[in-house]
């Protein structure tokens, strides 16, 4: 057993090895077999751990890129802010059971849309439980873009003086669309009414993909994993539509089970995430007194200032200028009526080989006055490639308004160069001239698809509420390629034998001289087969 001097000496040797100031008694080390052996051992350990040959380090980049290219763009915190403070983003997400008998729930879509303009501030206490721990925190929000969420030692601040409404990814608030067209393939249902935290509440059942932004916020600082198909019981304050309780359970189904097996996830029906808000105070400015925007990220090159790019000559009524500035070569201007917002980003220095503005590859050409623009999958961004300027218009106001704003910019949009990624973007009519085309009917709640033609392969991207996304790929052919996924299962789709590959979220079948593949990571097999059966000729 080493004595105290040896203990001290070894601790000093250890610290010194890590470059820390430490007084090592070298005389003792030289004369003590135990300590000199420890010293040699530390060096040996270092040479074996730190300088090991890197042979054998795998290249995971191709698989990662494949996985993320089917993943929604990095989610932004702004929708989380919106999702946390009101059910606004959920408005479009509700898939209404026809003949729902709960009056409060039945009128919810319209009220949810209206709430966008009614909520000026929110403060609440949070309790979040996942399978490993319970965490508590606070939420404070002040319209239109300041949010502070504290959970345990984690703090999330939105509205940090950096780029306003940062992030060009599809913003969930944009999804405030007429909800009448949404009917229940998956059958999310009213859960009725009850009282929570002394407040009347109404409940609905949705899927995690539909309330992705909200769940992202509730997972702050945690690594609990929620699958896109997991059912979510969501209870909203009846008056302000602020979420009061969120309970996520593991879904059943082969895709979920496989996903969970790789992560040590929960069994079907287990609660995987539960959150409750208490002491909720809405529209009392005193409760958000002193809520300071976080200091700006010093690494951000965004600077407030006068925007230099094209400005819209038309905006919806009530929209007033909000923050504006520049970030590197990009000019940024924003407008808001309190909660709803519009942003125009532009640059004269775009050197990319795809559309400026991070609108994704699956875009739809749209008419903008005398020119053409490109609408992003969900319709929540419109990109314009002008003769000497590239512009993207984003916002929370819906696709028609964004198009009108983009049209009023005074920039004549051109078709993208043939070498750009979007050059193979096509209209449904152009695709239909080459191949049979199937589309989802309007009442499934998915927007008209963005289409591409790559050689003889057509891809149609359908966007639904939240993160729900489906891609339909078709090419001439009469037989499926051999299965790559060992867990593939057979199902019947549209009267044809089909194959479901859970690893890739891919449902494939042959029909009418074409091979069809319906891909998704956010919709479970049961609902997917239902949607496939409802595809109709365009």
């Amino acid at each position, binding site marked *: 057993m080493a004595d105290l001097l040896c203990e001290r000496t*070894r601790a000093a040797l250890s610290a010194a090895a890590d470059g*820390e100031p430490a007084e090592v008694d070298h005389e003792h080390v030289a004369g003590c077999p135990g300590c000199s052996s420890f010293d040699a051992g530390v060096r040996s*350990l270092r040479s074996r751990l730190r300088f090991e040959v890197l042979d054998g380090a*795998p290249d*995971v980049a191709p698989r*990662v890129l494949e996985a993320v*290219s089917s993943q929604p763009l990095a989610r932004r915190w702004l929708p989380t802010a919106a999702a946390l403070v009101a059910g606004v983003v959920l408005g479009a997400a509700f898939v209404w059971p026809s003949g729902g008998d709960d009056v409060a729930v039945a009128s919810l879509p319209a009220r949810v849309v209206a709430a966008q303009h009614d909520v000026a501030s929110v403060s609440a206490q949070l309790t979040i439980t996942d399978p490993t721990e319970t965490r508590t925190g606070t939420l404070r929000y002040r319209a239109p873009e300041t949010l502070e969420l504290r959970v345990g030692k984690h703090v999330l601040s939105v509205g940090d003086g950096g780029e306003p409404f940062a992030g060009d990814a599809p913003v969930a608030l944009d999804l405030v669309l007429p909800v009448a067209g949404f009917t229940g393939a998956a059958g999310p249902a009213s859960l009725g009414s009850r009282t929570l935290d002394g407040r009347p509440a109404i409940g609905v059942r949705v899927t995690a993909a539909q309330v992705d932004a909200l769940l992202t916020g509730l997972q702050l600082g945690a690594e609990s994993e929620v699958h896109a198909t997991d059912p979510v019981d969501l209870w909203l304050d009846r008056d302000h539509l602020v979420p009061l309780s969120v309970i996520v359970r593991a879904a059943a189904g082969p895709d979920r089970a496989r996903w969970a097996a790789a992560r040590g996830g929960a069994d079907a029906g287990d609660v995987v995430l539960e959150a409750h808000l208490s002491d909720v105070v809405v529209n009392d400015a005193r409760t958000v007194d002193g809520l300071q925007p976080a200091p700006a*990220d010093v690494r951000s090159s965004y600077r407030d200032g006068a925007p230099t790019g094209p400005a819209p000559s038309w905006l919806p009524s009530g929209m007033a200028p909000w923050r504006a500035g520049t970030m590197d070569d990009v000019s940024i201007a924003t407008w808001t009526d309190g909660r709803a917002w519009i942003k125009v980003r532009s640059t004269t220095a775009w050197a990319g080989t795809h559309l400026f503005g991070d609108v994704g590859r699956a875009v739809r050409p749209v008419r903008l006055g005398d020119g053409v623009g490109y609408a992003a999958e969900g319709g929540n961004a419109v990109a314009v490639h002008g003769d000497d300027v590239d512009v993207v218009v984003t916002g929370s106001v819906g696709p028609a308004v964004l198009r009108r704003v983009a049209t009023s910019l005074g920039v004549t949009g051109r078709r993208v160069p043939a070498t750009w990624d979007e050059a193979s973007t096509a209209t449904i009519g152009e695709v239909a001239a080459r191949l049979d085309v199937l589309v989802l009917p309007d009442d499934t709640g998915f927007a008209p698809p963005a289409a591409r033609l790559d050689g003889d392969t057509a891809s149609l991207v359908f966007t639904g509420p939240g993160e729900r996304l489906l891609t339909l790929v078709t090419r001439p052919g009469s037989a499926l390629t051999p299965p790559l996924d060992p867990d593939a299962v057979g199902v019947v789709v549209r009267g044809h034998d089909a194959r479901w590959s859970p690893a890739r979220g891919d449902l494939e079948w042959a029909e009418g001289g074409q091979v069809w593949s319906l891909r998704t990571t956010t919709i479970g097999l049961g609902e997917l087969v239902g949607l496939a059966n409802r595809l109709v000729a365009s």
Partner: protein
Amino acid sequence: MRVEDPDPAVVRAARNGDLAAFEHLVRTYQAPVWRFLRHLLGDAELAEDVTQETFVRVHRRLASYDGRSRFTTWLFQVARNAGIDALRSRSRRERLELAASPHVASPELRHELDAALAALDRDLREAILVVEVLGLSYVDGAALLGVPAGTLKSRVHRARERLVRWMQAGEATGG
């Protein structure tokens, strides 16, 4: 070998959805992430899967990286959490397997450094890995693990004592 932070412009571009920038990050950091995970998990193949999962999570969560901590600290936090999830999953499976057959340490494995690492408590294993494999300072390593720097320092020392004893025992028995 110290793992350097990337150019903030690359992180910003990746955050804004630039896949080429994200690929650059993956290619730059996949080897150190894999090494870290291989030692944490003691299983090269599982480490490969978890490395992949790490970067998928990084892509999904880039928006929440606010630039206030070092990017590499954040990246290895994600890797560590993904690794812990994998360990939890494995320990569930192993509990079932252990119930079927009592585990006997293989004498060959006993002299392997990986086996020595595997025998450490996770706290100690993580501590030695962030300092030795990632080459982080106590301050940066402590930020990664969410513990005070003094705690990390003493864990590193305890881990070293055990690993050195383990290696010496192996040498003494002819391993």
